[in-house]
């Protein structure tokens, strides 16, 4: 029953390096090599492919945060880490759905990932709060903030894009937007 999946997974150190460099290729290889494993886990435990997609993407976000959070130590195989995270996430969802504890059919080794998931949950809350705050902010503030702080565009570019007469105006606008965003973020 427990059929191990054969896959040509890239070396773990390669992937960690790729994550740190934001390499798209690494993400793609990571995704294609490990998604089948998670799909198997979820399908065999009362889930469908959409559930598998959600759980797997969440586990990658956990991995990225962990790697980028610095002082990352790989004390197990990446595959085991991802599997364990997905397993926990899926168990949690199953329990939320049926309100009963149930056992899960395993396909791989597992390690303890509770700490990572706790951190992830905290980040997840922050993420949702930020998403909410940004959505409430409205245009053009949202785009200005995203352009400046996330896309790292220069004030000059933003000035041109929005047609401000000079950079100072744009800066004032950005300042006002940021103050509103902070207010929205902290009040939720």
């Amino acid at each position: 029953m427990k059929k191990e999946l054969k896959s040509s997974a890239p070396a773990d150190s390669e992937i960690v390096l790729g994550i740190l460099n934001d390499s798209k290729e690494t993400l793609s290889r990571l995704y294609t090599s490990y998604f089948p494993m998670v799909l198997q886990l979820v399908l065999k435990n009362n889930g469908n492919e959409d559930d598998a997609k959600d759980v797997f993407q969440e586990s990658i976000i956990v991995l990225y945060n962990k790697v980028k959070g610095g002082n990352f130590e790989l004390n197990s195989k990446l595959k085991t880490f991802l599997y364990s995270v997905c397993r926990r996430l899926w168990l949690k969802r199953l329990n939320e759905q049926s309100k009963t504890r149930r056992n899960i059919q395993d396909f791989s080794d597992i390690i303890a990932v509770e700490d990572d998931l706790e951190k992830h949950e905290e980040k997840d809350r922050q993420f949702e709060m930020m998403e909410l705050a940004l959505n409430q902010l409205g245009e053009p503030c949202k785009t200005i903030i995203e352009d400046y702080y996330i896309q790292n565009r220069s004030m000059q570019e933003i000035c041109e894009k929005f047609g401000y007469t000079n950079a100072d105006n744009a800066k004032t606008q950005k300042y006002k937007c940021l103050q509103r965003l902070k207010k929205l973020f902290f009040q939720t």
Partner: protein
Amino acid sequence: MKSDLELMNLIDAYLKGELAGSELSDFEQKRISDPSFDLKVVEHQNFILNLSEYGSRVKLSSDMNVIHESLDIQAIKDEVAPEAPRVIRLWKKYRISTAIAATVALIAVSGTLLSTGYFSKSISTNVNLLRREINSIKRSQNALIKNINDKPAKGPSDPGEYGGTGFALSSNGYVVTNFHVIKGADSVYVQNSGGESFKVKLIYIDPAYDLAVLQITDPGFEKLASLPYTFKKAASDVGEDVFTIGFPRDEQVLGKGYVSAKNGFAGDTVAYQVSIPVNPGNSGGPLLDNLGNVIGIINGKQALLDGAAFAIKSSYILKSIEAIPQDSLDEKLVVNKRNTLAGLSRKEQFKKLEPYIYMVKVY
């Protein structure tokens, strides 16, 4: 607020690494010398970090979605969980044959059960209903003699084709018996222990519970004294001593026994099983407990088996009485609530009961 605006722009510039030379050193100097300024910088820095984490997560998600779109999910699914599709394939292939096989099986099973009479668990096959066929040989001299000696009954001298037992429900002429006793009757008469016959009319039948309520319409009928027995509402326990009075011949016969099971034939919850000697003619007789409460009405016994008679529970008699629309009755049917039999010996109980038990004659 202008200073705050400038301050923020300064911090932004610092965080983006756009400050240089004296500006940078001034800024860092100020962070060291002014803790509240430093706090502002850290606060802002954290918020911006939060914001950029949000940005990178959104980007990561959208990147992953792009990759996900490019995958052939169905192929992966087939590889990791091939069982399900195979089952579905088999099902699709064989479902018509399966349906036919299931239908054939169903017809075969139900046909067999039908032909062996499994569904028609009718009481009549295994239970003898205890109505008596009165043949001409047995026809009672009794009746004739009584006709001569006593005041002449209005009823016919012919003893009828069938007979059973019935007993009074109330003092004003209502009598209960089994439905099977009077089934198919042209006319029905009841005869009391004194040999007087009265014409009765059918008030109510309940074939499901095998009950029939009759009313004496004969002008010669005189009201009885109030009933000595009551009807028990609750079910009786197994082991309770009981007795019955019936007309297996042209005379009242007392039978004694005990309740031997809570349910009747084939688990029929309407009846008790009673271990009591009963014979054709006992049908419709009252089943009484030691205190003189009616707990049931005898209706049959199991064929080919000794000591298993059946009696409809008294609660169903009460239900039938309730089911009769009172408006349609000439006289009110009131069930007796006072028991005067308790504590008496069996001999005295029998004497008191005698006038309330009738032979039911069916023509």
